[in-house]
């Protein structure tokens, strides 16, 4: 590919303080503050929208309503003490947050993970992806005004996965399951059979979902051609995860970094071609099908053995000075942890690379020119969790 294929970064079309150039005179513009308590924002998040009639001419997101300075708290915690806090970042998928943090610390301290623990991580990680995506498609339908039923269908599936998490880790959402060099507890008796039962129902849910909604003309009318994100902008703006892949960016960290044991599984990376809301919805449905395949393989090959590296101490863990950046393909995108150790029990610097926040970089570009009702579904298709956006 030539240099010309990647233009210089596209900047926001409207700067703060500048008057919108297009449309009628500014007297007819309506300034609307959506949020922080608006139900479509999935939390406490505000968008300052300037409207020309129903059309969006400017949109500025306002963050920080859920800011608790997670990074500062972690600087005064031990390395292990930050693990339960990571659950509270993206509280829909705590286990992948645990995994990303454990991976970063393992890189920092050079810890090896036993094989069984790697398989357990893949199993719980893919289950997390399943329930996150199920949740997302339900919420997106709700945002589109398809009130109640699809969300309940999605939550029925999610509930079964959360029951599995509770049986394994003791909590439905605040799992606190991974440890440096492995996992905290081994599978309880009968857990794998229960998981197989849940997973057997999953394709039926997806089929039903597709039959009912994906071909629905109202849904297609609402989502196709709305919030189009170009491939070039997606790469430049650091968009990751399903949102980037819906725009045709072939980048899945499970395939690129091959962290853990992902090189042992056969799975495909679904790609979109239009980058609109419909593609972002379909990518999630297709990814759920691929996750089911990975889960089947992982549960078939699950070896026996220890679940945690015996050399890693649980008390008094002090990595040698240095730094490491570890990242995984979380359901929302690239979740990275950047850690600096100065040899003390607390990290000197602890940074979370939040996919939800960075995926919102292009929110204004996606919404410009669309109607107010489309902002809601565009935001819904980005898939944010405010616990992670604001940290």
């Amino acid at each position: 590919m030539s240099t010309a294929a990647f233009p210089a970064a596209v900047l926001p079309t409207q700067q703060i303080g500048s008057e919108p150039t297009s449309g009628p005179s500014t007297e007819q513009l309506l300034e609307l503050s959506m949020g922080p308590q608006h139900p479509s924002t999935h939390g406490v998040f505000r968008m300052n929208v300037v409207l020309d009639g129903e059309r969006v001419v400017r949109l500025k997101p306002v963050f920080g309503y859920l800011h608790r300075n997670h990074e500062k708290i972690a600087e005064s915690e031990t390395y292990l003490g930050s693990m339960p806090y990571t659950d509270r970042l993206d509280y829909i998928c705590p286990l992948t947050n645990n995994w990303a943090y454990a991976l970063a610390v393992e890189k920092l301290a050079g810890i090896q993970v036993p094989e069984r623990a790697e398989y357990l991580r893949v199993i719980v990680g893919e289950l997390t992806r399943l329930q996150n995506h199920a949740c997302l498609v339900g919420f997106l339908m709700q945002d589109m005004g398809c009130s109640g039923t699809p969300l309940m269908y999605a939550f029925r599936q999610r509930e079964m996965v959360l029951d599995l998490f509770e049986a394994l880790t003791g909590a439905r959402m605040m799992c606190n399951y991974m440890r440096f060099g492995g996992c905290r507890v081994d599978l309880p008796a009968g857990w794998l059979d229960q998981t197989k039962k849940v997973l057997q129902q999953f394709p039926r849910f997806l089929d039903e979902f597709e039959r009912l909604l994906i071909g629905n003309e109202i849904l297609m009318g609402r989502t196709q051609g709305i919030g189009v994100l170009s491939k070039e902008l997606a790469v430049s703006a650091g968009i990751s995860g399903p949102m980037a892949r819906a725009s045709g960016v072939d980048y899945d960290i499970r395939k690129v970094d091959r962290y853990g044991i992902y090189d042992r599984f056969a799975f495909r990376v679904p790609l979109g071609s239009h980058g609109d809301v419909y593609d972002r919805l379909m990518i999630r449905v297709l990814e759920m099908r691929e996750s089911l395949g990975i889960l089947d393989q992982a549960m078939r090959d699950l070896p026996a053995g220890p679940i945690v590296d015996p050399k890693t101490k649980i008390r008094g863990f002090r990595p040698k000075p240095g730094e490491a950046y570890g990242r995984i393909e979380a359901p929302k995108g690239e979740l990275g942890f950047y850690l600096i150790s100065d040899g003390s029990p607390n990290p000197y610097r602890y940074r979370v690379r939040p996919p939800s926040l960075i995926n919102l970089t292009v929110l204004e570009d996606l919404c410009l020119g669309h109607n107010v009702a489309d902002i809601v579904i565009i935001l819904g298709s980005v898939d944010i969790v405010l616990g992670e956006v604001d940290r």
Partner: protein
Amino acid sequence: MLGDGILKGLAETARNFFGSYVSRDRLTTIQYPEQRDPQIEAARSFPFLVFDGADWQQGLRCVSCQICEKECPPKCIFIEKSKDKKPDAVGKPQFYPVRFDIDISVCMSCQICVEVCPFDAIKMDVDYDLSTDDRFGGLLLDRQRLAKSNEHYNKIHPTEAAAVDAALAEERAKAKAAAEAKASAAAKAATEAKAAAVANPAPAPQPAAGESQ
């Protein structure tokens, strides 16, 4: 056909409406306070202190090492160490907590105190229907309210508690064996000293070294 999707949606609604009266796996309602779901063994709510025997003050396993206080991520544990010692779960004289408070309005049920405890003294409870109308006193649990018997622990986490009990029994047996060995050594030393005293009465008899320890 236009309107096809609406008809499909209505058919699905009708199917589910009638299904909810007959399908057995969808009749999931239970009469909550009277009926309860079986408790999951791995479940956790807030920590409690394990004691052995009948008297919670005598039997507390906690030796006031304060590791959990230091490791607790939101710093919700407050311990005051005793001045004197009492025998612990294995019979060794140890300090004990004169004050052990957990503020469950701060606790986030992360289980790290349980993991770092070297004495199996703090474990996670499974109570989930907790409530109080006292914002400060009711949420600050002191050691008396935290103390729960080993039987309770065995009831809520049977597998885990069995392993802990086995390990403790082994340690107790080891301690007992060591004490017996010490006692027999002391007895032997005493008889030797006596024999020496009989053979050679003039100097003062050597005190049995084992007894004073």
